């Protein structure tokens, strides 16, 4: 009960101070806002990339190209070998005629080019499409298959995925650096805001000491003021996260570029992100105000 009374008083005082030091408070809040928007976008992007790399890996296939003009006997041998590799889940054979047909259906350009090639001179090859059980052993399995007789080349999609993940990782690092820098600026601004409040209330604080307020009572309003700055600063980022992601998801109908890259469903994703953003705002506010209290309030 007593704690609630004191908290009520602290919150009231803190809000008063935010209003009284309006310009500096606004600077802190804006800085938190910018930081949190970037943080929110980074988190959303990161979760999505993680999500779709998993998706892509899940249905990753190894394409096994056989040598030119291979005999049916040799094809059967390769098939036996594939069967004996434990990580191979299933495989389907596609003759070069089938490949040609499929490519001709996909595009008119291919159609005219491929029209003029008969089977003898065709650069296309017979292929096996192999699905694996364990994606982590994908490249290992691919290497094994490559050593099988009559196999000319082995391809698997990891090149594209690897490149994307690598590119995203470096973007993530840069973003992380920017966020750290912004957090530092924010904390600095909050420290100065709270410092102003402390000096405006110096008289009050000295009287509080005289009449026997505990250190906790003296500190709490200032810590709460920092937290309130954090909460105010996270309002806009939360709105942007919620409505922005919803609009983004709707605009792309849940997919980017192709069916391959699937976006995370907005619910409950946006609520989780909003929660994280709010939490970061509050924590940054608290860090700023506690260091100001430690520095300028000798209790």
């Amino acid at each position, binding site marked *: 009960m*007593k704690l609630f*009374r004191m908290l009520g008083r602290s919150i009231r005082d803190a809000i008063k101070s935010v209003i009284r030091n309006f310009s500096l408070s606004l600077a802190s809040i804006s800085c938190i806002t910018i930081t949190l928007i970037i943080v929110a976008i980074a988190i959303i992007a990161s979760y999505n990339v993680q999500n779709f790399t998993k998706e892509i890996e899940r249905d990753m296939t190894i394409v096994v190209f056989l040598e030119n003009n291979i005999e049916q006997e040799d094809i059967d041998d390769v098939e036996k070998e594939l069967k004996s590799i434990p990580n191979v889940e299933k495989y389907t054979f596609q003759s070069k005629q089938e490949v040609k047909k499929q490519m001709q259906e996909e595009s008119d350009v291919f159609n005219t080019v491929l029209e003029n090639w008969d089977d003898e001179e065709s650069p296309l090859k017979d292929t096996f499409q192999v699905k694996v059980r364990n994606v982590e052993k994908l490249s290992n399995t691919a290497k094994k298959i490559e050593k099988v007789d009559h196999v000319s080349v082995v391809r698997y999609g990891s090149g594209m995925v690897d490149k994307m993940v690598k590119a995203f990782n470096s973007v993530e690092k840069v973003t992380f650096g920017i966020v750290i820098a912004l957090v530092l600026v924010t904390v600095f601004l909050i420290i100065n805001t709270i410092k102003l409040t402390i000096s405006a209330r110096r*008289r009050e604080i000295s009287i509080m*000491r005289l*009449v*026997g*307020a505990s*250190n906790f*009572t003296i500190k709490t309003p200032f810590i709460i003021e920092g937290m309130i700055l954090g909460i105010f600063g996270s309002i806009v980022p939360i709105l942007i996260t919620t409505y922005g992601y919803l609009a983004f998801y709707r605009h792309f109908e849940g997919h980017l570029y192709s069916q391959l890259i699937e976006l995370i469903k907005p619910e409950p994703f946006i609520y989780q992100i909003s929660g994280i953003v709010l939490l970061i705002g509050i924590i940054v506010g608290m860090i700023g105000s506690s260091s100001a209290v430690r520095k300028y309030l000798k209790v």
Partner: protein
Amino acid sequence: MDLIRMKNVEKKYKNGVTAIYDLNLAIEKGSFVFVIGGSGSGKSTLIKMLYREEKPTKGQVIVGGLDVAKLKNKKVYKLRRKLGIVFQDYRLLPKQTVYENVAFALECIGEKKDVIRTKVLKALEDVGLKNKVHNYPDQLSGGEQQRVAIARAIVNDPKLLLCDEPTGNLDPEKSLEIMKVLEDINKMRGTTIIMATHDKEIVNKMKKQVITLKDGHLVKFKQKGTYVE
């Protein structure tokens, strides 16, 4: 029983000035004691050691059984809740009413609203300000402002009231009004009062116990004393 006991107390400030030398004294519960002496004789330092604004460099300061010299910074508030303090410059919050100024002392220690109301009105009645509850400090005379400060100091029923030159800014007439208030508090509430002053007339008129300091030394501790240079 002794409320305050000081044993071999010395206070040397960081700049090398010794404000109090080897002080020994005991003050009984319920007494009214003046601390007198010229400017710089160590009156304020003595008072400050009692509410743990300053720590003695040597010796023991015991207030209500608590060894104040050994009290950790974090625990000072426990001592402060047992005493009230009044200064020459009132130290009120200018943007708060008389009522709010007095209530502030209880809000700070988490008292309930209805308890605050009862206690604040009682304290304001004791200092004769019940009709100015909603005024702001700048609407009051110096004497009235000091009475608000006294009300704030006694609102939590402290055992001990420390006053450092409470009449220092007031004319003789207003000073006597304040003394009347303090004497009533001492008698009605049984609060022990220690008051530093250099006002001869007041001391001579009141006939209370007198501690005389000179350059940091205790020169006299007399019952029903008068001011002597």
